[in-house]
């Protein structure tokens, strides 16, 4: 009963915050279309939005549209995946990048390209999901060995080590194959720069399923947050609830990594930020994470285009620059016992 009292905050505040974050999302989407390495006049932007591609400016804007869409989808997926992982593992440091899931997905895709010659967006996506699933199982197995189960410290170290291992194998594979290096390289640091509609649309069915499963798990995640015993007392089948939520998270980050490459820290930062805004009820938290995640990733992408003119900084670098200080702040705030 106490728990439900905590979970229910005044609805108005949440509604207000939802309006604010949605407005923010629309603003950064607007920025993403108007700002870039090339300055484009308003007339060209207007023309491009109606489908004209005659001047260079209009063509540049036409490239920014799918890019914005991809960043929004990827950000939403990573934000929700991070919130679900933090809920399932009850670990404030859980993030698909930190826990090695993105690196596993990336390795699987690179192995697929290098050894099995896979191509096509759907094949990439399935391979990415497989890699993400294997990596998350592995990290959870390593991180929960020994006394005390999966503590945040153990999980994070296992994830970081798995990330490093997967990344170094990925690098060795890519360097050995000049023929695939070009296609893999831009993708490897985590970027949305090469986005096309043809690559973005195949993500949609997977993302919809992932988000739906995540939302259906929201109530169970609330129960799991109270501890396994309490959750059982509330009638939750703990392992089923955990499994379903993890499948959602793996789907979301596997798909995103298959198309964008490994992007870290979005899944860490966004849920913590959203919890400050709307509290810990996952039924509200998850939609907020989707909106804020989309806004954050689009914002990071815009920043990456502007800070290093005339070249671009990949969005994965920008999110790491933003996210690593947040990670450090969380580590500092936690008591070591709680870690």
């Amino acid at each position: 009963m106490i728990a439900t009292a905590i979970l229910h905050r005044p609805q108005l505040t949440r509604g207000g915050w939802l309006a604010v974050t949605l407005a923010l999302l629309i603003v950064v989407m607007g920025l993403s279309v108007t700002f870039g390495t090339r300055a484009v006049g308003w007339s060209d932007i207007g023309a491009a939005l109606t489908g004209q591609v005659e001047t260079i400016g209009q063509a540049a804007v036409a490239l920014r549209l799918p890019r914005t869409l991809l960043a929004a989808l990827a950000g939403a997926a990573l934000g929700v995946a991070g919130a679900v992982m933090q809920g399932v593992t009850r670990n404030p440091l859980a993030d698909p990048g930190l826990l090695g899931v993105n690196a596993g997905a990336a390795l699987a895709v690179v192995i697929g390209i290098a050894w099995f010659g896979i191509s096509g967006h759907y094949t990439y996506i399935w391979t990415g999901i497989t890699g993400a699933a294997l990596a998350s199982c592995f990290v959870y197995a390593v991180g929960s060995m020994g006394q005390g189960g999966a503590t945040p410290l153990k999980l994070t170290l296992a994830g970081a080590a798995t990330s490093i291992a997967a990344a170094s194998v990925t690098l060795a594979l890519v360097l050995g194959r000049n023929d695939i290096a070009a296609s893999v390289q831009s993708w490897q640091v985590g970027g949305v720069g090469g986005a096309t509609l043809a690559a973005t649309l195949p993500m949609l069915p997977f993302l919809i399923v992932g988000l739906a499963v995540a939302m259906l798990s929201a109530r169970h995640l609330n129960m799991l947050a109270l501890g396994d015993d309490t959750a059982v007392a509330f009638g939750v089948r703990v392992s089923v609830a955990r499994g379903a939520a993890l499948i959602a998270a793996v789907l979301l980050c596997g798909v995103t990594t298959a198309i964008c490459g490994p992007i870290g820290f979005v899944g860490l930062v966004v849920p913590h930020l959203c919890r400050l805004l709307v509290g810990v009820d996952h039924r509200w938290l998850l939609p907020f994470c989707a909106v804020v995640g989309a806004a954050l990733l689009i914002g990071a992408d815009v920043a990456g285009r502007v800070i290093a003119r005339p070249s671009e900084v990949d969005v994965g670098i920008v999110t790491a620059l933003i996210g690593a200080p947040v990670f450090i702040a969380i580590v500092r705030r936690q008591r070591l016992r709680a870690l």
Partner: protein
Amino acid sequence: MTSAVLSLPLLRHRRIRHRQIVIAMLLALLVAGAALTLSVGQTITPPSDVLAVLFGRDVPGASFTVGTLRLPRVVMAILAGLCFGLGGTACQILLRNPLASPDIIGISAGSGAAAVFAIVVLGWSGFGVSALSIIGGLGAAALIAALAWRDGLSGGRLILIGIGVSTLLNSAIAWLLLQAPAWSLQDALRWLTGSLNTASLDQALPLIVALLICGGVLLSLTRDIAALQLGDDKAAALGVRIGAVRVAVILAVVGLIAVATAATGPIAFVAFLAGPIAARIAGPGQPPLIPAALIGALLVLGADYAGQFLLPHRYPVGVVTGALGAPFLLSLIIRMNRTGRLT
């Protein structure tokens, strides 16, 4: 009881003897490895020609392959390996945690970021790069210590914060590299994983200076470092000035790591691997500083040779050591989980 007391000097003698044998064998391996890498590459140069080139005589053909191509690589591999191995193991011993090596907790990344800044943005070269790299490494070490400090440095928090700082600095390196006039994958790899492809003999002097000064400091403090391993209280009871020793060791570690990183990039995991391997083969006794340095040199030399000639493609040395080190890191974490050292 009596026999145990009587055998103590004998035991001590045996340990010292064992350590001397280990060091002699590692040295022999290193010399053999250097000789092999100097004479066998794409082509085989007879040992007589190698020696002739080393003594400065001009041998057609061999002067180029041995003197210009192979010698700088071998010299830089050995010097950088000595620095990484010695610095890494001293840091692990000081912080009493094998995970607390400079390349994992972000000291290497700080040195690398400063070196990249000096080279790419300021256009410097030579000693200036090394100096700024040392400042960067010290800055990173101070930042990590300040962020992780709460009534002392606890292992888990220090390492997590180090991983965070390291990620941050590596992103900064990636960003700085984008500012370079001609971005190339080779440069990026050199600064993110370490490579000897740009090795030249002019880079050797800062490393030799660092090895003489910082290595000398560490070796002269060996007894104090050994006492610190027992814990602060016991070390203080043994008359060790804990604070001063710690500061001296950290300064020496940063000096070694930073200068080597400025020359070759942070060759992945050499600093992390050398200590545990040395501890295993050197047996009990004093902290195995010299064996760890030699193992670092062997690792870099061997991995660079493998990356050039033994693997199906040519890889920079950092990719090879990274592929060796990452599974070892995982197995170490698994072992530490099992024994409950990580809680």
